[in-house]
């Protein structure tokens, strides 16, 4: 802690407290509003009352029984988990290759990866749509798993490569002397040292897949993920907000738990660019 607030410590603490409270309100109020509104029954959702009267779980029931949100959550889970697993598997191998092997052309590959990760997905949605329509992949799990894997690989490779660069070479050499195959060396010697990197890459991939909208909307209009299902219930004139919020609250749970548990990994991922460039 710095010591410069020796003058007027009390005054400072007040400003800090007030500002912190404001921040909490700014961030939390809209989310609280959503959670509260998800308990408003049909009689109070489309009114301007603050608290539900009476508190009702009817929206949760309707969302999962009538509006297929259970199926949407299952679809999102399948797509997200498969993509994350693929990203971590392929990304580990590539990160190790690019980080530790004396390959030529590493630099162009890394630059190309970086450029691809900044590409707006609107640029590839049309051609991918046409290709997927031609090979009959529209409304399938793989229609999302494949592009999600590709779009999240560059960041994962970048993060994992940075971790691999920090592992002492001697450890791999020990494995090599003991006669371990290269894959075996990666699996049992290198990977355990890079678990923080795996967490970071994994949580970013998971969040990105869970929240992705444009590709899911374009490729899978009937095999809907949560964001697509949320955007398609209701009409342009009237949205069933109570049901949407009930489903949203449920859809928030897995990601909020993951982000809170792996908070440190998320923060280190957000700042990875700042530290390592």
């Amino acid at each position, binding site marked *: 802690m*710095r*010591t*410069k607030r020796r003058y007027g410590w009390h005054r400072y603490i007040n400003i800090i407290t007030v500002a*912190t409270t404001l*921040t*909490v309100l700014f*961030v939390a109020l*809209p*989310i609280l*509003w*959503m959670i509260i*509104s998800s308990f408003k029954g049909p009689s109070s959702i*489309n009114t*301007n009352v603050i608290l539900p009267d009476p508190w009702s779980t009817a929206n949760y029931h309707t969302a999962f029984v009538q509006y297929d949100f259970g199926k949407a959550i299952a679809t999102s889970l399948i797509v997200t988990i498969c993509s994350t697993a693929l990203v971590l598997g*392929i990304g580990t*191998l*590539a990160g190790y290759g690019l980080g*530790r*092997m004396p*390959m030529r052309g590493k630099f162009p*590959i890394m630059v190309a*990866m970086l*450029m*691809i990760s900044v590409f*707006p997905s*609107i*640029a*590839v*949605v*049309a*051609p991918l*749509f*046409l*290709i997927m329509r*031609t090979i009959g992949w529209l409304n399938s799990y793989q229609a999302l798993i494949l592009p999600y894997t*590709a*779009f999240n690989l560059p960041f994962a490779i970048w993060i994992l490569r940075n971790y691999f660069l920090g592992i002492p*070479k001697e450890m791999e050499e020990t494995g*090599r*002397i003991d006669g371990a195959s290269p894959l075996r060396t990666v699996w049992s010697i290198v990977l355990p040292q890079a678990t923080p990197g795996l967490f970071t890459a994994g949580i970013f991939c998971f969040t990105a897949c869970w929240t992705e*909208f*444009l590709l899911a909307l*374009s490729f899978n209009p009937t095999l809907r993920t*949560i*964001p697509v299902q949320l*955007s398609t219930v209701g009409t342009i004139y009237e*949205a069933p907000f109570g049901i*949407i*919020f009930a489903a*949203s609250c449920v*859809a928030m749970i897995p*990601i909020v738990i*993951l*982000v809170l548990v792996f*908070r440190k990994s998320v*923060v280190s991922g957000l*700042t990875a*660019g*700042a*530290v390592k460039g």
Partner: protein
Amino acid sequence: MAVTSIPPVTAPPTGPAPPGEPLIVGRPDAFRRRLARLGWEFTAPALFVVGIVTIFPIVFSVVMSLTHVTLSVSGFHIGSFTWGNYSLILKSSTWQYALGFTVVYTVITVIVELFLGTCIALVLERLVRGRGVMMALLLIPWSLITVISAELWAYIYDPSFGIADRLLHGLGLGSPTILGSNVSAIIAMMIADIWKTTPFVAIIVLAGLMMIPQDVYEAAEVDGANSWTTFWRITFPLLRPTIALAVLFRVLQAFNLFDLPYVLTSGGPGHATTSLAILGHQVMFTDLSFGPGAAIATSTALLVVVGCFMFLRVFRAQVGKEEL
């Protein structure tokens, strides 16, 4: 580097082999080549997946944007070469508006988010307790599905029962239809965006603040600098790479601006909140004009890449080479 990757079994790493004895074990070149091949084998799956999903479609998109594309029931047909798609969008006032809107929207939201995010980070840095809890809280909007936040703000802005309407009424500002007129719809969308993204900026800036060594501040204090001078002369310059990074992230995201207007305003009223991504999507998937749509998509991607390069140039010149 080369020496350390030779396994220790290749015993005398330096010095010539004994005369007359053929060098069997220690062949660094062959070993290196084997490792390099292994490296390519390890990298190949990633290159393959990324290649078929991004590079191939990007090339395809450029081709589509330069030809007459026609869509049929079973597939699509690529016709003859034309510049027509580009001249069509360049002349279209809708495209010009979408470009201007995306740029202005990006600039304003990024400035506000940076200001608020830096303020929040400076406050949290001084927190004695509860910083972890605050970080956790700030991560929730970041991890929220954008569609959810858009629906939430649509509910808040609703003309008949939205809480914002009630607030404005309570403040004596009447009951404007927030999403019904151009300027207020744009401001409303910016507020929704700022709410969701400021926490993200705050976390990046906070992490940057925590990397600044404490002795710099102690030195400043010894020199009798007040907190205002300390911020502008020490904190801000040292924070510049972090801020630059946050700006880069945000600008890239902003050119992808799609989810929020799609759900909140559908690009309206009229075309008021039609971003480049919304326009591209409409032209391709509603009008089924894949040629002009591809031209919009390709030009957006080109803008992003060029912007990125220019940004990195400036950024690199400012902070020196060690950052990139």
